[in-house]
């Protein structure tokens, strides 16, 4: 039984034990991409926890007794299951493994009590075709072994939010088959962060990389809490072809004293400042391009600009998953099947004013 697997050791073949998020981060790390270090609390740990407390049976009974369409009853059931997971004792072997892993991470990064992000990495999440994303929880700026344990529990418990229960029921997934892995990753103190897609999500154009970015931690962008700056970058030249700076009214920053991430209003004069310089946009685009190349298909990535990276490369990769919408769509309807060549084509070009074409595309 392996309760812990460091990201470096996570492979795609470990998907069932570490979940999609950790498996993906592992392969990216091995490909040499800059990913903040961390470890996975494997499904073995989760299973051991539940088994030691005889929770599998209890959970099954609770679920069977409830009609998922009955909101109130579902709430009650969810609260009860989650309460159990969050309060029952963690088996000593599991707890020790987590504490040791956290300590090792602190030592490796040269920090006494390393702030980490504790995120769920469900085994069905992040897989192409399914979008469980957002069904489970994420906790930012967790400091100290105690807090890590508390939040690992909360992630385990998040498998049984009413939303998650209902979603699995609707999609026809067997609740027991879904096991939870938890990713514990060094927290990046982000000056700016956001997402990037290696195609244009508006039209599926694969020659572009589109970046949404804002100040502070990227959850504001992912969660839609802020209108981010938007950059459209040509993938081959890594040149910015369109740039929209938006009024960014709020950011999520680390409150080092409170040891958590807090939401803060952005001063009016800073709201219209670009959250990325052109060089930084290019660096993010370059990173996204490398990730796409590694996976061989369009990607949806989360990235951050590490405020603490002084002499080193500041852009880090936090997450990457396959893009799901355009990649699975059939070929674009605008694809032509016939092209003129040679002099006939030159003639057509001369006959059709370029400027008229440009205008109609604007």
């Amino acid at each position, binding site marked *: 039984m392996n309760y812990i697997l460091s990201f470096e050791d996570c492979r795609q073949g470990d998907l069932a034990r570490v979940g999609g998020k950790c498996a993906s981060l592992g392969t990216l790390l091995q490909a040499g991409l800059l990913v903040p270090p961390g470890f996975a609390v494997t499904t073995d740990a989760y299973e051991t926890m539940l088994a030691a407390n005889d929770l599998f049976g209890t959970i099954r009974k609770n679920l069977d007794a409830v009609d998922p369409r009955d909101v109130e009853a579902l709430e009650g059931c969810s609260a009860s299951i989650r309460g159990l997971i969050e309060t029952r004792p963690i088996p000593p072997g599991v707890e020790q493994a987590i504490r040791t892993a956290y300590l090792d991470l602190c030592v490796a990064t040269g920090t006494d009590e390393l702030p980490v992000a504790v995120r769920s990495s469900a085994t069905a999440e992040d897989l192409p075709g399914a979008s469980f994303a957002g069904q489970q929880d994420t906790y930012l700026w967790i400091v100290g072994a105690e807090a890590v344990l508390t939040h690992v529990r909360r992630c385990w418990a998040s498998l049984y939010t009413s939303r998650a229960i209902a979603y699995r029921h609707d999609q026809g997934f067997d609740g027991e088959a879904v096991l939870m892995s938890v990713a514990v990753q060094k927290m990046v103190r982000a000056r700016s962060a956001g997402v990037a897609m290696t195609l244009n999500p508006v039209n599926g154009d694969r020659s572009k990389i589109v970046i949404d970015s804002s100040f502070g931690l990227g959850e504001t962008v992912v969660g839609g809490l802020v209108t981010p700056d938007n950059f459209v970058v040509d993938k081959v030249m890594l040149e910015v072809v369109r740039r929209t700076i938006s009024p960014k009214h709020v950011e999520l920053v680390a409150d080092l004293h409170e040891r958590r991430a807090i939401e803060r209003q952005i001063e009016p004069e800073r709201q219209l400042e670009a959250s990325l310089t052109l060089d930084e946009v290019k660096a993010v685009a370059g990173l996204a391009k490398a990730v796409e190349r590694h996976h061989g298909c369009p990607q949806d990535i989360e990235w951050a600009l590490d405020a603490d990276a002084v002499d080193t490369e500041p852009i880090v990769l936090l997450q990457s998953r396959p893009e799901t919408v355009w990649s699975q769509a059939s070929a674009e309807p605008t694809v032509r099947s016939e092209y003129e060549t040679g002099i006939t084509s030159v003639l057509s070009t*001369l006959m059709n004013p370029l400027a008229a074409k440009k205008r109609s595309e604007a």
Partner: protein
Amino acid sequence: MSTQVKRFASPYEDPAPEGAEGWESLYPYFLIFREDRRKEEESKFWFCDAQHWPNVFKPFDTIHVEFACKCLGQYNARHLMIPPANGVDYRVHNGYCYMTPLAVAPEDIPARVPLFLERAGYYFENWQSLLENWHRKIRALIDELDELDFEPLPDVVPLEWIKEGVGLDPTTDLIADYHRAIELCYKAYQYHFEFLNLGYAAYLDFFGFCKESFPDIPDLAIARMVQGIQVDLFRPDDELKRLAKLAVELGVAGALKEGSVDDTVAAVAAAPRGKEWLAEWELAKEPWFNYSSGNGFYSTDKVWLDHLDIPLGFLRNYIEQVERGENIDRPLEQVAAERERITNEYRELLVSDEAREAFGGKLTLARTVFPYVENHNFYIEHWTMSIFWRKMRKLGHILADAGFWPNGDDIFYLRRDEIPVALFDYANGWGVGAEACGPHYWPAEIERRRKIVEALETKRPIPAMNEPPEVITEPFTIMLWGITTERVNKWLAGSEQATELTGMSAAPGEVEGIARVVLGAEDLDQLQEGEILVTQVTAPSWAPVFAKIAAVVTDIGGIMSHAAIVCREYGLPAVTGTGSASRQIATGQRIRVDGTNGIVTLL
């Protein structure tokens, strides 16, 4: 708040500045906006071509705009029968050149299509052999032009001519050679456009395909896929670099560092391996120093071969760089590898085999024609025109020595149709044995014209006239001059207090620095290291100075203009076609140049 202006001023409402009255008589009658053609003239959209002709014309200098425009037109209208486009008409107004593209009436277009397919088709199919033929024709023309010799008339006809029973005097050839020089210049311009229009058309075809397949693809990316690696246009500069490295290698760098051209050559000759280096220097001169400091269109342009201090100055800069251990070579392998990478990545992004095939076909054609597009400039504007100006100057000096005018270059204040008359005046005086009239007539007349030209120069030309068309359709207008509907709208909306100027993203990169506004090649030496060159238009021969500067900003120019090609080649951020940068920016001002996005910010 400025009101939205929908049209530009009419030429008939654009008066000449004070002191320029009577300017019309300096130019051919058919180039003036005439009152009795007002209605027709005002119905057309005219734009100022300050890219090629940034300064007020001296009377003789209109030869180039006349020949160039007429010959561009003939290939559209009479040789290749480009279906929708005829030529570009042109006028001189207040001393500057204005142009209007002429479209073909819609009902006439269909008949031209089969003619175009046959004629343009023939050129595309036989491009290489026709191009080889072109090179032979140009070399022959250059040789013939170079052999023309203007000499002052002798006191007596040579004895050999008597003994050989020639029965003619030296004025015969003097007059004939002048006409021959003009004729050869005219022919050179016809050769200039023999392939150019087709070259642009093929490029536009590939350009349009890329824009359709990859919306928002940077113009530069397309240019990079097509542009050549070994380009004759850069050869003069490449030669200087080669000579700089050789100088250091042979140990003559020290002798080259200072002094006049003659002193320097003497110092090098005295050095141990100096003669080796001088042999290479001589080799480089022909033909590569037939390179103009301007664009070859003005009598005032200086040619390297006649002003060796110019290339010597650039050479000295390169020697300094070599001695500092810098690599001055153009990274050819890198450029070639990058071109491959870009081409392959875009090709891979295409979604079907048909698309990839079309891409490949159009790219191949564009790459076939593009060397001509890049190189013709050296052969015609630089090499041929250098010789042409040299001959004309010599003629000017002969007449100056005969008292016709104070300086040799004053000949350029005469219209080209007036020179034969002046020549005959000179020949006549000599022939009858009396004083020619010229010395009494020309000095005052030239002084009058000089004052008019100076007065005209006090006012910058308005960028355009009358109402712009809804859409600019003539492809060469778009490609070469960068005149697009967008650009015109920006001119129309232009504000006098702009802190941001926009133009064409001619060469990528972003840089901040101090601006130096340069109005002519003679001001180039004022440029300090790291400054940003701001000018109406650059010339390819200014390239050596680009080693010093941080960026380039120009008033007019498309991304296919020579300046843009050179800036990309030398890795210098550049924004062209800003419309008025040289007027809105002052020397010493701090500016930011964003060549990638075509934005210049006044800081």
